[in-house]
């Protein structure tokens, strides 16, 4: 892999971690020579079954564990402690300090990660974030007394308050109700639209489809998707270019009516997000038919693009692990 590539914000190179905590058990390989590049300005999905090594990879990035081998590069240079200032981390569960208030937690985060800001700037930033995340009425509550959903909001706030260049989210949707999920998704998409790089670890397939631009999958500590050229010289065969069409202001019922009445081709997948319809097609001609219909009807076409995707069935295969 080329470490001088400017489009890469973070790179794991041959990262290996073997846990040898218990002398009575055989060593457990958590990461097995994992090499992966995370590109700048896009959202990467980091997937894998439970125990695949996702959290170990994240902990290695944040220097919470020491890998046995391999290196981590941030913007083509070996990751240093001070680079962590530019990273935001939302842990898997609410790992917030219990005995400090929401306000104090955010203030501490800024004090440590943005020492350059003056007191007024810090205060303004905290106030804005509390409003954005809906934590304003809870600002004087102890973090340990927050509900799970509010705790996730605080975790999001802590991960993003210092304007990081790369945000690493470990299961951000876990424990959220449907409204909370939509809000979290919107926050992630907002950051993505601002050009901030995101690594999203999740088991939620809908989130992968609607948020992630690229995915990589870990299985039993090894990177299984995308496969390296050495592993897969003739091409993976499971990767496919799907056509994504996002339309605004069209109710779901109208889309179905088109299929029934105008005999328009059926999409492979449809996701409604508020007033936005996200249609995914396998066939280019099918996608073009819908694109033409939208343009002729003067509907708002938000995006039309081809993205490398992985079939749901294939994706499921990667999550299956023998007991």
């Amino acid at each position, binding site marked *: 892999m080329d470490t001088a590539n400017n489009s890469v914000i973070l790179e794991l190179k041959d990262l290996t971690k073997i846990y040898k905590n218990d002398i009575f058990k055989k060593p457990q390989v958590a990461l097995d020579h994992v090499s992966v590049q995370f590109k700048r300005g896009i959202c990467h999905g980091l997937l894998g079954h439970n125990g695949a090594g996702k959290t170990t990879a994240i902990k290695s990035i944040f220097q919470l564990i020491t890998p046995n081998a391999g290196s981590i590069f941030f913007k083509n240079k070996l990751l240093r402690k001070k680079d962590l200032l530019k990273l935001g981390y939302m842990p898997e569960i609410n790992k917030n300090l219990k005995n400090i208030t929401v306000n104090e937690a955010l203030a*501490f985060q800024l004090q440590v990660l943005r020492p350059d800001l003056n007191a007024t700037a810090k205060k303004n930033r905290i106030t804005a974030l509390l409003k954005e995340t809906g934590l304003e009425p809870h600002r004087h509550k102890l973090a340990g007394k927050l509900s799970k959903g509010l705790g996730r909001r605080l975790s999001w706030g802590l991960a993003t308050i210092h304007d990081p260049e790369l945000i690493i989210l470990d299961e951000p949707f876990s424990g959220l109700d449907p409204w909370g999920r939509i809000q979290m998704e919107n926050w992630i998409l907002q950051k993505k639209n601002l050009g901030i790089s995101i690594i999203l670890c999740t088991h939620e397939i809908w989130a992968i489809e609607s948020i992630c631009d690229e995915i990589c999958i870990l299985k039993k500590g090894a990177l299984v998707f995308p496969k390296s050229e050495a592993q897969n010289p003739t091409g993976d065969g499971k990767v496919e270019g799907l056509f994504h069409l996002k339309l605004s202001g069209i109710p779901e019922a109208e889309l179905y009516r088109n299929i029934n009445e105008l005999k328009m081709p059926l999409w492979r997948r449809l996701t409604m997000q508020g007033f936005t319809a996200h249609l995914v097609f396998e066939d280019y001609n099918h996608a073009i038919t819908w694109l033409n219909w939208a343009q002729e009807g003067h509907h708002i076409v938000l995006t039309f693009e081809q993205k490398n995707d992985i079939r749901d069935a294939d994706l499921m295969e990667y999550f299956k692990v023998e007991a």
Partner: protein
Amino acid sequence: MKTLLSLIYQSFLMNFREKIFYALALTHFLGIALCHVISEWTMQNMTEVLYDFGGFYLMLMSSLISIILSSKILDNADGSVEGVLALVQSRSVYLIGRFLGLCVSIMASTLIFLAIWQIFLLGNQLPGLNMPHLLVFFTLTVPSLLIAALSLLFSSFTQTTVTVMTSFILFGIGLMSQTLSRGLPANASVSQRYIVEFFAKFWNLQQYNLMDALHLSGNVSNNLLLWLWIYALNMMAIFITLTIFIFAKKDI
């Protein structure tokens, strides 16, 4: 430096909001009230009981609280340690910040205790606390700081329960080592003698309790106080350095 100060402040806030700290504040009242009861029962002079029992009580309670709180500093059961360590500060800054925060909390708790004591003394038309008294009282908190540092060292390589139990045992040994050494029978084996004398020399927590000397003579030499503090600070520095060394390599 800003990070360290933030950590000390945060640690102080967290400790002071621990329920066990409220219990400590409550037992301060109870402790002093108990002195009054003991004085009535034993017909002893109230001031004498206060200095004798109250001093020991302060040392005991502060140490118990510091063992419990310090054992939590590196306990990542709820993942909060991970959350803070994922920020930029080095692990040594984290450790020192949390430890100093605990020291400040113990000192603040002692101040509360002394304020209650002072109110009680003045309320009973007894002579109030003066500067030498305060110095001796603060020296009483040294065992709690020492045991906190030791507890932190244990927690860097073992589980919280083991840390708490070991620290309690070592605290008891520290209180008794001098007495055990003096009462060692003449026919004690060499190894027995070495062990007891080792603890009496290096882990004698009773030497920080100068209440008897203060009560009897009304004053304690500043040189003695200075020596005790320097000795204790060196011990703490050794424990914390060892903890930093072990914790630096630990996977979280």
